[in-house]
């Protein structure tokens, strides 16, 4: 496969005199000339998907116009190389470019350059367009939209709305994408996010500023549409319950959350994750005025995930309000032992609910699997993966 790509490099370089020196050996990404296709291909080829490497640093130095100039005219310029690349190579180029720019976005976000991260995702999305819309490409695109939308929802919070709108428009019958769209609205409705000033938000998100109420309504609508397509998506029911709780519709929220818990017991596709989160939200539902019921729900969550910190925090808050300082401190002891050595708490599904990091990892693996099938010439590359339902 490396040989095929080097042939592509050599062929393209015949048309790009500025990069003739790149023919001899794989160049260092940092030494490449921004804006040329051969440099772009070299960076793509040298990037190891999922890792933070020199290729990511190199592409981060390119402006968006550099990238667009390098990729202008694709896939025609690649297709012109049919003798050495062909359709499979065009597809492979697209998939690897998507993974490169997605990793670049992931690497940029923690440093606070959210606008640049969003721009990288938009470039990645534009690379999807150069493949034909067939089952394989659809599977890759749908999975990538879930990954990118989930990343923006969990890591940066803003910027994913327009991306997921395009995703739902392309795949209107995807319950997963409807769930992801609702989850984004659920996050954007959060009080913390709502406090971000419009001026600040405009730097990272071209989406319109919406009120908390509007966001919650949109989230509920997405979750209901997802459930209408597939009633077994219990996570949509849990999130709908949460949104109803935030809307002050306690009775409806309780109904949805208890249905989610029952679905777990009834084997209708729910699992510990949904059951745990439902118990936490039921605890919150009861917390104002019905402390005993709240306590029982948080205890139930703790029984499901004995190592998780969230039920202990919730229980300790209740106990502190009753004036039991000793009990409060003891409840929190396992959350942060006095001789802590590493900032790694035990797995807590609440964090997964908020950030979706575990799911993002699965989606990335699914994208990699599709890429590997393309590289291996597997005709079944478009079959359903593991991280998406449909």
């Amino acid at each position: 496969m490396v040989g095929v790509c080097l042939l592509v490099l050599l062929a393209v370089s015949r048309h790009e005199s500025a990069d003739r020196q790149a023919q001899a050996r794989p160049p260092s990404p940092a030494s490449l000339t921004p804006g040329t296709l051969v440099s772009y291909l070299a960076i793509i080829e040298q990037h190891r998907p999922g890792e933070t490497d020199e290729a990511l640093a190199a592409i981060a130095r390119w402006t968006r116009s550099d990238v667009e100039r390098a990729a202008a005219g694709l896939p025609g310029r690649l297709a012109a190389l049919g003798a050495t690349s062909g359709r499979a190579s065009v597809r492979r180029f697209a998939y690897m470019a998507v993974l490169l720019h997605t990793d670049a976005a992931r690497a940029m976000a923690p440093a606070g350059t959210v606008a640049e991260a969003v721009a990288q995702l938009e470039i990645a999305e534009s690379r999807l367009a150069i493949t034909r819309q067939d089952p394989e490409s659809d599977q890759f695109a749908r999975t990538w939209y879930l990954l990118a939308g989930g990343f923006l929802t969990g890591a940066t919070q803003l910027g994913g709305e327009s991306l997921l709108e395009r995703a739902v428009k392309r795949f209107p019958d995807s319950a997963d994408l409807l769930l992801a769209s609702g989850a984004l609205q659920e996050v954007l409705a959060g009080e913390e996010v709502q406090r971000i000033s419009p001026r600040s938000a405009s730097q990272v998100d071209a989406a319109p500023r919406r009120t908390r109420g509007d966001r919650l309504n949109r989230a509920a609508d997405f979750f209901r549409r997802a459930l209408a397509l597939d009633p077994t998506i219990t996570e949509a029911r849990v999130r709908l319950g949460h949104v109803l709780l935030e809307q002050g519709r306690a009775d409806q929220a309780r109904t949805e959350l208890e249905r989610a818990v029952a679905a777990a017991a009834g084997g209708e596709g729910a699992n510990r994750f949904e059951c745990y989160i439902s118990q936490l939200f039921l605890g919150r539902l009861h917390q104002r005025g019905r402390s005993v019921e709240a306590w029982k729900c948080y205890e139930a969550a703790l029984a499901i995930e004995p190592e998780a910190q969230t039920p202990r925090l919730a229980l300790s808050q209740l106990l502190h309000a009753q004036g039991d300082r000793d009990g409060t401190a003891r409840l929190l002891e396992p959350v942060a032992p006095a001789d802590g050595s590493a900032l790694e708490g035990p797995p807590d599904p609440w964090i997964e609910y908020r950030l979706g990091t575990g799911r993002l990892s699965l989606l990335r693996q699914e994208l990699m699997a599709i890429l590997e099938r393309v590289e291996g010439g597997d005709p079944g590359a478009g079959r359903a993966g593991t991280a998406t339902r449909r």
Partner: protein
Amino acid sequence: MRDAACILIAAVALGAGADHAEQLPTFRSGAEAVRVDVLVIDGSRPVAGLQSGDFEVRDDGIVQRIDSVSYESLPISLVVALDVSASVRGDRLASLVEAGEGLVDALKPVDQVTLLAFNHAMLRVGPTSDAAWIRAALRSLRGSGATSLRDAVHAAVVAAESGVGRPLVVVFSDGEDTTSWLDDADTLDTIRRSEAVVYAVTVGAQSSPFLKDATREAGGSLLEIGSHRDLKATFVRVLEEFKRRYVVGFTPAGVPGAGWHRLDVRIKGRRCTVKARPGYFR
């Protein structure tokens, strides 16, 4: 009340019930005697040398007889709660570690310190008087993960009031809360029921309404600085200011027993700024 009893029974079942053999120090809300940590400022300088006769304390509007006033004589139970989420890396992290060390260096041997580093999880070291242990822990910190600020503030207040000494919490955060379970109301409730004084320091971030509320309810301050390079000086200034606060004690009289009590602390015959918690739970 029935709720409370049931919760306590459940807490015992969880192993969280009170161990009556172990007595907590007297710095707690709900006890008969109430202690209020008070900062008195004239212009920009703390005022020293005040006596009990200089203070006027009103509990729900009723003037109270002051039992005691202490100044600079009590040990400190400090909790340093540091946000080390993914955005705190490189120079930012180095400045934060240096600031934490500066804070530890400014403590007296009788003081105790707990380091509570947090992202979406928490790491606690202490309480201890062993500065070297805290310094080593500070130097081992690495920025990663998301931010559970409210959860950490709740845990920090609980840790501070469990220590031996005047409870002080110094919180640093440079971002928004993305993963806390506890909401503003939950955490502010914890603060209002505690005697811990909370100071918060933010760098370049958008003003945090939560930290503003939290520090006000705890009688502390929110310090918003422009550069990480100023962290050390700011941390040390916080500690020096805290050392110059008075602890005013009184036994509530003529006021209702249970619930929230509004506090008003003034200095008689002087135009001073007085900073103290706005009330307490009894």
